[in-house]
């Protein structure tokens, strides 16, 4: 089974990379991009029967720093 974890900086936490991407899009002539937030996607190949709770535990312990990042999990 597979799980995909999305890790994003929390709202309110400065995302200088997102801001730089937004600026570059503007420089390329893409008007109207008001905000860009950049995160990461982590794909996990897991043993059958791994529970969402276990993946959540992985997020809390390592994959996300919950002081600054939020995460979401897609199982499938």
């Amino acid at each position, binding site marked *: 089974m597979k799980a995909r974890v999305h890790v994003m*900086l929390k709202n309110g*936490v*400065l995302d*200088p*990379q997102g801001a*730089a991407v937004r600026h570059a899009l503007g420089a390329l002539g893409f008007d109207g991009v008001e905000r860009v937030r950049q995160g990461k996607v982590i794909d996990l190949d897991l043993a059958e029967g791994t529970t969402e709770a276990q993946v959540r535990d992985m997020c809390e*312990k*390592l*994959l996300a*720093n919950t*002081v*600054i990042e939020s995460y979401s999990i897609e199982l499938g």
Partner: protein
Amino acid sequence: MKAAVIVFPGSNCDRDLAVAFREAGFDVSMVWHKDTALPQGVDIVGIPGGFSYGDYLRCGAIAAQSPICRAVADHAGRGGYAVGICNGFQVLTETGLLPGALLRNAGLKYICRTVGLRVETAASVYTEGYTAGQVIDIPIAHHDGNYFADDETVAALRGEDRIAFSYADNPNGSVGDIAGILSANRRVLGMMPHPERASDARHGGTDGTAMFRALGTALAPA
């Protein structure tokens, strides 16, 4: 007086930190990240700067899960002293021994230069060689030194006099200009600037020496 300096794959200030401890009178052991215990009788643990595990995932995140970091957490839990500099500060926040987190510099650039650092409190074994309000010159060299904590945490740090150093001219966007903080028991210090790189005249500055000298005095056997 014994100091241990942790060596992770990617540490690059480990030897500098060992030299600074040694100059202050400590017996220094270098401790490999896969070790599960600190040497007997260690008074202070140093977590050096560098790029542990290549900064994969997040700076300090993988190092914080290493076997030796469990021993460092136990040592701090027993009231032991620990100082994390640069990547070491990132490791200390990732282990939860210090609050907050380090983000990418607000200007997105790696910054390597000497900055003015205001000593916010002299009430710790690390800072009692300075006077509160004194501005010292210490080098920084980091890409992810933008200290972040929520308002409540920053207010608590301020209220408990746990901000050790702040930037005179904030180079990286850190909240409240914070450059270094202390644990609640004031025995764990994390800071982004490098006092060990300003502890010999040949470095171009000696403003970091007072930290190691004060540590040597404070931790000397009675």
